[in-house]
């Protein structure tokens, strides 16, 4: 713990070390898909790509739950809105094939609008009550997707929409291997780079938000809403902004998901998905950006590790498969959640707030930081 903290401190003060660390990190992220692809195969690369999408979702939900303290149990609805918008505007379903640079921002905007729609009637609710309303909202969106195939077929109902255009920019499509400086970049790698770039953008935006006036207002509302009002914070607008910003991140991730998967159906947006994203935020460390990213990665990868590992392990130990790995996967996953929550209730990587008082910064430092 101390070593990690002092490493961060050093990076904060030593510019050259910080640049070196950034370059190393960038190189590691750049070669990462090739390492995974050649060692573990393409199925793992797909999982890594999904981890990027879940990081975006978890960061979006973290704004609502972690920063503003509003428990949202229907967050996956915004992912659905982004995904369906992409599916409707770039597939043979309506015969529309709009460009990606138009659809993804439109998905962010529409999801943001849905976020405001959810936020406006629930402004007075908190905690359990808000959780129930948002849970209902998430289900309403999913059920709409399921049933909007009659009398006019908009969403194609439970069959979902298939044949969605892959993500393509200009003349380049990510569905086929790209050649870059004579090297072939397989499709999954290309998606990885795109998702990584957007995830980094969302990380950047979130960090900026956290340290802004708005970010501090969110935290104030989380801590004490009446006091926040007494400090002159327009709690209504600031809460709506949290819902809108969080939802728009979900909309971006949804659009990318639709293009990546080539198929969307209401099944992908059920309550379990909302719970999963919420688990990423809580397990990683609510309100702490690195923690939430860690949560997103771990909760995407862990179930797959259990799925892939449980079968071979049983054969090695018992000589045959006793328990279906699929069933075992959720069991182990649930167990992991319980263990983490018991031993690290604040999350795997909680925010520094609790540690700050021991750090002993001078008052003037914080005053400057606070500006």
């Amino acid at each position: 713990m101390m070593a990690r903290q002092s490493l961060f401190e050093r990076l904060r003060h030593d510019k050259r070390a910080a640049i070196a660390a950034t370059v190393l990190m960038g190189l590691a992220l750049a070669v990462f898909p090739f390492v995974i692809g050649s060692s573990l195969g393409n199925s793992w690369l797909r999982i890594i790509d999904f981890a990027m999408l879940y990081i975006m979702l978890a960061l979006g939900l973290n704004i609502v739950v972690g920063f503003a303290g509003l428990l949202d149990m229907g967050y996956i609805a915004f992912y659905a809105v982004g995904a369906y918008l992409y599916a409707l505007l770039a597939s043979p379903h309506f015969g529309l094939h709009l460009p990606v640079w138009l659809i993804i921002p439109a998905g962010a905007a529409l999801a943001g609008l849905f976020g405001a729609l959810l936020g406006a009637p629930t402004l007075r609710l908190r905690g359990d009550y808000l959780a129930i309303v948002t849970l209902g909202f998430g289900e309403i969106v999913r059920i709409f997707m399921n049933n909007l195939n009659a009398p006019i077929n908009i969403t194609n109902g439970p069959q979902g929409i298939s044949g969605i255009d892959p993500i393509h920019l200009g003349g380049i499509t990510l569905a086929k291997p790209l050649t870059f400086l004579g090297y072939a970049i397989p499709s999954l790698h290309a998606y990885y780079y795109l998702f990584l770039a957007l995830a980094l953008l969302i990380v950047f935006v979130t960090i900026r938000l956290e340290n802004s006036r708005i970010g501090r207002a969110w935290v104030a509302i989380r801590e004490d809403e009446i006091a926040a009002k007494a400090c002159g914070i327009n709690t209504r607008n600031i809460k709506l902004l949290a819902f809108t910003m969080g939802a728009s991140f979900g909309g971006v991730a949804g659009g990318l998901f639709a293009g990546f998967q080539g198929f969307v159906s209401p099944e992908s947006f059920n309550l379990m998905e909302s719970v999963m994203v919420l688990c990423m935020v809580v397990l990683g460390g609510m309100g702490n950006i690195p923690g939430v990213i860690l949560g997103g990665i771990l909760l995407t990868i862990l179930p797959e590790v259990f799925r892939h590992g449980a079968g071979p392990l049983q054969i090695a130990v018992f000589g045959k498969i006793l328990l279906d790995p699929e069933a075992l996967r959720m069991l182990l996953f649930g167990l992991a959640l319980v263990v983490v929550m018991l031993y690290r209730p604040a999350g795997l990587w909680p925010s520094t707030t609790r540690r700050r008082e021991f750090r002993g910064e001078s008052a003037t430092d914080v005053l400057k930081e606070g500006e």
Partner: protein
Amino acid sequence: MLEVTGLRVAYGGIQAVRGITFHVEQGEMVALIGANGAGKTSTLKALSRLLNAAGGSVRYCGKEISALEPHQLVSEGIALVPEGRGVFPRMNILENLLMGAYSRQDKAGIAADSAHVFSLFPRLEERAQQLAGTLSGGEQQMLAIGRALMSRPKLLLLDEPSMGLAPLMVQKIFEVIRAVAEEGMTVLLVEQNAKLALEVSQRGYVMESGEITLTDESSKLLANPRVREAYLGE
């Protein structure tokens, strides 16, 4: 500076404040005293717009403010120290104070005012990095008052600053309230501790079951046999 006319507050069918009229002049400290459930806090909540009034008018510097939103009052120059203190527990003292200056942009002024708050409450400066949730009740009350001052208000509304505090701490808090008032701040003090409130204020109003039953200069209220009997335990 503040003129309240016929203010009514109701929770469902129950009238908590039944059309009260009072005023606060520029530069004076006015105490609103009364027993538990007399409607003091409801009055203050209606003034600070945390509650919707059922009727009546509230004029501040000649302007009707009963339709403004709570956050707008801060930029008008009204600051509330909420009942039960309401500090931000997971922010440190300095961050709490800076939240009080949320509506302001002038960095130099904010730094000067936080230095001023620290001079009023040296104990807060010693613990500037400590999380507010780990402070004692009295320190939290100091912080809540300090935070309200950070918006550089013209009118300070104090809701039960003595609540749940040790007698010694109450004395300290009231010394500071007096000091703030002596700097020219207009203060409306809602308080159950009638003796203390009347000792620091110039005028007082006595509230009983949602109505103002008595008003006078504080020194005269302190001498009033009815007040002595009902609120000073004699």
